[in-house]
C-alpha cells in the first residue's frame, strides 16, 4: 500500500512539471489591517477550480493561460472580491478583502459563496468562525475559543470545571493544541473554565478531528490549530475589555507601514478583588496571559514572524468536603518562523519552537492528599514545503524534530496528623529525555472534476526511555462530488503518539501526569476510518454534514487498580496498558450568513476500553464516553446595535465506577470497619445528564470620546440560565446517623450573570 502511494505520487509529480500553465499566486489580506486571511477561498470562475489560502494567507493557483481569468475570492465575514485579470504569464496577486460590517447590509454573490466544505478532499475539519467566538454567550464576561470548540460535533466537553475536550473517543492527551505551531499542553485558565487564548489576539481557529493531513502527527484524536494575529500593518489600534474576571488589553500597529507590524495582548485576572468580600482567605485565584507577535516582510519572497505566549494560573480553593486544592500551572511558548517563496509554486516555512509547560497541584480530598508535578519542555525545529505543480496537485512535504524533556512526579498519602505533608522538590525530579522525528509527504490531487483525493504518508521515529519506535502512517481522504453542493467523502488515517498523559479515573481534579514512551510504555496507535455526506443548501448559505467514524486505539495507558504513588515510585511500573475503540455518527447543520448564524450539532458515539488488568479483563465504557451530545448555538442580529446569542447543550452523564454490592468482612473491629465493595464492572454508572442554556445580549456602538471615534460594546449574559445543578462528581459516604450508605453529588456552577465592557479605537 505504502509503496504504491509513494510511487504514484512521484510519477504524478514528474508528469505535471511538463504541463503548460500559468501560476497565479499571492496573499489574501484584510483590507484595513493587512492581516492575513487564513482559509480564504480563491476560485477560478472559468474552470470552477480553486484553492484556499494557507496559514499565512498565501495561495498558489495554476490555470490555463487565457486572455481573461475571473477570480472569485471569498472569506467568511468579508465582502466577496471578484477580479478579472489578464493571465498570459505567471502573476503575483495580493487581494484585499473588506470586512462585511454586520450582515444586515450584506450583499452576497450567492453562486460565489464558499463551497469548499463540500468540494475539498478533506473531512473532519472545522474552521471556527471568529465571529462566532466573538458573539456567542460568554462565561463571566469572558469569550472563549474552547467553549465554542466544545459545541462542535464529535467534540465532547470535559467535566464542568475541568474543561478540556474529548474528540471521537480520544482522551484529553490525544488532542494537539497549537498556538502558532507551538504545543500548548494545558490550554486552560481558572480550573479550566475557559482557555488561555485571548480572543482579541486570535486570527484563525481550526479543528481537525479525522482525515488528518500528513503534516500533522503525534496525537491520535485531534489537532486544534490556533493562529495569532500578525498585527495591524496600517495603523495603531487599541482594544480591550473589562469583565467580571479579568481585564484585557491589546495593542497593535505597524512597525514599518505595510511591511512590518506587531501585536501585544495581555490579560490579567482581578478575581481576588471580587472574592475578598465573599470568601475565605484560603480561596484565591489569579491568572494572566500575554501574547506578543511581530512580523517583518524582508522582500517579496521572505517573511519572518516571531511570536511569544505566556500564561499562568495560581489558585487555592477551599470549598466542599472534596474540593480543596492549590495549583500553579502555566505554559510558555516562543516561535520563530521564516516563510520563503521559491518562485511562485513552492512555499516554504521553517520554524523553531520552544515551549515549557508545568503543572503543580496539591489536592486534599476525604482526608487524603495528592501532590503532583508534571512538566514538559520541548525544543522543536521543522520545515514544510508546499509545491503547487499544476492545477490538479498540491504537494506538501517536510520534516519535524522535537527534543522533549519531561519531569513527572507524584505523591499521594493520607493527611498526616502532625507535621507537614510530603512536598515535591521540582529540582530533584528525575527527568526523562526523548527525541521525536517525523517526515511526511502528501498530495492533494483533483483526479477529475468530481473526484479528488488527498493522500500521503508520515514516518515518525521516536527514541527515549531505553527504546526506539518507528512507524508508517498512511493517510488518505477521497471525495466524490455528486453535484456542486453535494459530495461523499471517506478517509483512513493511522496515527502514533509518543507522549501520554495518564488520567486518574477517580479524582475529580485534573491530575493527569505526562510521560513519554519508554521500553515499558509503548506508543499509542490509532486507526480511524470515516465516511461522510456533505451537502450545502440555499446557495451554500447552509452547510450540512453527516459523518460516521470508527476508530481503534492501541497501547492506551491507565493506572493499575489500587496503584498508589509515593515519592520514589517508578511511574512506569504502576501503569497498565490496553486498547480502546470508538464509533459514532456526527451531524452538523451550520448557517454562516444572514442575521441569524449558528449551528446545530448532534453526536451519537460509543467509546470503550479493554485492559487485561482492569475490570477483570472485560471491556468497559471509557470515563469520557457520552452516548448523546447535542448542542445548539446561534446568534441573531436584532438591530444595527443589538445582538442576541444563546447556546444550549445536552450531554449524557459521564461514566463512573459505582460499587454494586456491599460485603461485610468481620475482622474483629480492627483498624477499618469491615465493609467492602463488590464492583460488577468499571464505569458502570452514569452521572445525571448535563444540560445548560447560556444567553447574552450585546450592544455595540461607535461613539465619540474627546472628539475621537471609538467602538464600545456592552455584553450582558447569563451562564446556565435556569441554574441547573449539573453533576460535577459523585462520592460515596455513610450517613453518620442512619449508618446507611449514600451518594452525594457535588455541583459547581449555578446561574452566573455577567456583564462586560469592550472597547476598540
Amino acid at each position, binding site marked *: 500500500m505504502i509503496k504504491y502511494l509513494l510511487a504514484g505520487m512521484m510519477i504524478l509529480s514528474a508528469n505535471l512539471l511538463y504541463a503548460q500553465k500559468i501560476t497565479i499566486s499571492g496573499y489574501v489580506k484584510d483590507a484595513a489591517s493587512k492581516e492575513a486571511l487564513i482559509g480564504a477561498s480563491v476560485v477560478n470562475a472559468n474552470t470552477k477550480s480553486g484553492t484556499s489560502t494557507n496559514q499565512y494567507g498565501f495561495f498558489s493557483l495554476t490555470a490555463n493561460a487565457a486572455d481573461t481569468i475571473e477570480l472569485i475570492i471569498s472569506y467568511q465575514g468579508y465582502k466577496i472580491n471578484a477580479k478579472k485579470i489578464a493571465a498570459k504569464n505567471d502573476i503575483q496577486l495580493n487581494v484585499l478583502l473588506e470586512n462585511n460590517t454586520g450582515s444586515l447590509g450584506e450583499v452576497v454573490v450567492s453562486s460565489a459563496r464558499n463551497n469548499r466544505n463540500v468540494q475539498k478532499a478533506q473531512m473532519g475539519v472545522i474552521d471556527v468562525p471568529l465571529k462566532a467566538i466573538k458573539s456567542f454567550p460568554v462565561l463571566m464576561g469572558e469569550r472563549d475559543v474552547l467553549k465554542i470548540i466544545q459545541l462542535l460535533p464529535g467534540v465532547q466537553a470535559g467535566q464542568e470545571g475541568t474543561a478540556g475536550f474529548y474528540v471521537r473517543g480520544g482522551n484529553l492527551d490525544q488532542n494537539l493544541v497549537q498556538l502558532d505551531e507551538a504545543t500548548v499542553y494545558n490550554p486552560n485558565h481558572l480550573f479550566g473554565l475557559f482557555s488561555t487564548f485571548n480572543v482579541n489576539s486570535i486570527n484563525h481557529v481550526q479543528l481537525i478531528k479525522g482525515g488528518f493531513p500528513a503534516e500533522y502527527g503525534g496525537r491520535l484524536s485531534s489537532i486544534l490549530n490556533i493562529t495569532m494575529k500578525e498585527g495591524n500593518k496600517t495603523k495603531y489600534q487599541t482594544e480591550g475589555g473589562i469583565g467580571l474576571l479579568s481585564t484585557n488589553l491589546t495593542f497593535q500597529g505597524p512597525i514599518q507601514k505595510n511591511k512590518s507590524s506587531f501585536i501585544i495582548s495581555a490579560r490579567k485576572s482581578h478575581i481576588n478583588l471580587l472574592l475578598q468580600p465573599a470568601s475565605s482567605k484560603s480561596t484565591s485565584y489569579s491568572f494572566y496571559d500575554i501574547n506578543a507577535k511581530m512580523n517583518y516582510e524582508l522582500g517579496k519572497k521572505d517573511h519572518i514572524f516571531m511570536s511569544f505566549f505566556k500564561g499562568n494560573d495560581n489558585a487555592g480553593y477551599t470549598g466542599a468536603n472534596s474540593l480543596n486544592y492549590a495549583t500553579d500551572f502555566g505554559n510558555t511558548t516562543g516561535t520563530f518562523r521564516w516563510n520563503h517563496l521559491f518562485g511562485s509554486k513552492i512555499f516554504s516555512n521553517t520554524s523553531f519552537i520552544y515551549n515549557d509547560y508545568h503543572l503543580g497541584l496539591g489536592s486534599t*480530598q476525604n482526608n487524603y492528599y495528592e501532590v503532583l508535578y508534571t512538566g514538559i519542555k520541548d525544543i522543536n525545529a521543522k520545515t514544510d514545503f508546499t509545491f503547487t505543480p499544476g492545477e490538479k496537485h498540491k504537494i506538501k512535504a517536510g520534516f519535524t524534530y522535537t527534543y522533549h524533556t519531561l519531569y513527572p512526579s507524584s505523591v499521594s*498519602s493520607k493527611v498526616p496528623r502532625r507535621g507537614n505533608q510530603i512536598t515535591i522538590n521540582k529540582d530533584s525530579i528525575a527527568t526523562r529525555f526523548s527525541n521525536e522525528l517525523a517526515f511526511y509527504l502528501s498530495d492533494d490531487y483533483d483526479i477529475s472534476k468530481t473526484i479528488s483525493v488527498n493522500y500521503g504518508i508520515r514516518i515518525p521515529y521516536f527514541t527515549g526511555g531505553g527504546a526506539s519506535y518507528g512507524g508508517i502512517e498512511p493517510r488518505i481522504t477521497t471525495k466524490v462530488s455528486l453535484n456542486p453542493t453535494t459530495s461523499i467523502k471517506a478517509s483512513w488515517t493511522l496515527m502514533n503518539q509518543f507522549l501520554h498523559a495518564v488520567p486518574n479515573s477517580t479524582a475529580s481534579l485534573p491530575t493527569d501526569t505526562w510521560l513519554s514512551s519508554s521500553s515499558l510504555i509503548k506508543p499509542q496507535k490509532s486507526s480511524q476510518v470515516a465516511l461522510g455526506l456533505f451537502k450545502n443548501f440555499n446557495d451554500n448559505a447552509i452547510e450540512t454534514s453527516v459523518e460516521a467514524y470508527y476508530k481503534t486505539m492501541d497501547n492506551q495507558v491507565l493506572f493499575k487498580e489500587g496503584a498508589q504513588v509515593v515519592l520514589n515510585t517508578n511511574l512506569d511500573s504502576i501503569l497498565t496498558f490496553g486498547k480502546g475503540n470508538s464509533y459514532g455518527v456526527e451531524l452538523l447543520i451550520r448557517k454562516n450568513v444572514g442575521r441569524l448564524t449558528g449551528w446545530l450539532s448532534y453526536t451519537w458515539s460509543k467509546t470503550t476500553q479493554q485492559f487485561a488488568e482492569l475490570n477483570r479483563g472485560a471491556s468497559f465504557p471509557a470515563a469520557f464516553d457520552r452516548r448523546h451530545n447535542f448542542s445548539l448555538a446561534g446568534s441573531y442580529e436584532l438591530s444595527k446595535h443589538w445582538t442576541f446569542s444563546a447556546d444550549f447543550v445536552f450531554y449524557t452523564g459521564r461514566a463512573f465506577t459505582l460499587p454494586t454490592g456491599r460485603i461485610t468482612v468481620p475482622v474483629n473491629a480492627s483498624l477499618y470497619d469491615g465493609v467492602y465493595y463488590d464492583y460488577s464492572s468499571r464505569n458502570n454508572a452514569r452521572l445525571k445528564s448535563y444540560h445548560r442554556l447560556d444567553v447574552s445580549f450585546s450592544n455595540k456602538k461607535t461613539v465619540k470620546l474627546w472628539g475621537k471615534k471609538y467602538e464600545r460594546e456592552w455584553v450582558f449574559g447569563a451562564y446556565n440560565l435556569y441554574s441547573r445543578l449539573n453533576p460535577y462528581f459523585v462520592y460515596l459516604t455513610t450517613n453518620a446517623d442512619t449508618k446507611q450508605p449514600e451518594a452525594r453529588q457535588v455541583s459547581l456552577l449555578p446561574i452566573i*450573570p455577567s456583564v462586560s465592557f469592550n472597547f476598540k479605537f
Partner: protein
Amino acid sequence: MNKFIYSILIITAASLLFLSCEKVITITPPPYVGKVSIQSMLEPDSIPIVYFNKTVPYFDSKINFADLVIRNANIKITSGTTIDVLQLDSVFDKVYCEYNYYYKGTVPIQMNKTYTLTILNGSDTYTASCSTNSLSKSTIDSTAYTANYKDLYGEHEGVIIYFRDVPAQENYYRYEMDRFIDTATKKAEVKIVSPCLGRDSVQVQELGRSVFNDVGQDGQQLKIVIEPAYSHSPGTKGYIRIQSIDKNAYDFFDQLDKQKLSQFNPFIEPVFLRDGQFGSKAIGYFSAMVKSNAAAFIYPE
C-alpha cells in the same frame, strides 16, 4: 449602569462561582446479582469458625450482621474420615454494638491435616480446601514503638515488630495484638467510643490491615510497622503475635487492604475483588494459620 447594581452583580457572580453545591442524591445502581461471603481461618487446637453472610446491593438498608447472616446453611468441615458439622452461633460484639453471627464446629483443628469446607445453601454448593501442613511459626525478636511513621497510609504512630522469617518456604504474615479496651478507648480511625463497652474492659483482637510476604527476604529478619486500631495511654499492655497464614488468606486480605485504601483515597483507582477459592459466586477464603509465641508490648505513650 448603576454602580451599586453592578457591584452586587459582580460579587454575586463571583461568589456563585466559588461556592459549589453538594446534596444527597438517589442513584439507581445497575442490577446486582448477590453473592455470598465465606470467611474461615483455621487454627490448630482451636474450634473452626465460618462466617457465612450474604452480600447486598450497595444502597441496601440491611447493614447489621443479623440481616446479613445466612441462617439455614448446611456447613461441614471434613478431614479424612472426620466430619465436623458446624452450627450457627452468635456473640455480642461490644465494639460493633451488635450480635455477630458465625457457624461454629466442635472438633479442634490439628496440625498436618488437610481440611475441606463444604457449604450447602439451598441449591448452591461451595467448597474449598486448606491445609495445616506447610505452616510454620515465626519468631518475634523484638518490638518497639514510633510516634511518627510514614507509609502508604500517611504519617501515623506505629508498633514495630522485628521477627524472623521461616527459611526455605514461601511465607505470608499478619499482625495480631490482643489487649483490653475500656470506655475511654476510641477507634483510631473514627474517634468514636462504642456505647456498648460498659464499665468493664473488653478483650479485643487487633489485626493488621496489611499482610506481608517474605519475597526477597527468605530467612531474614523482617520489620513491620503497624498502626494501632485503638487509642491507648502510657502503660497500656498488649500481646503481639505474628500469624503465619496461607496464600489464599494473604491474597484475600491483600485485596481488602488495597481496596480499603482506594475507598478512602480518591487518588487511587478502585480495586475489584477477584474470584478466589470459591469461584465467582462467593467471596472469601478458607485458610489456615499458626501463630508465633506472644510478645508482651507496653505502649510508652
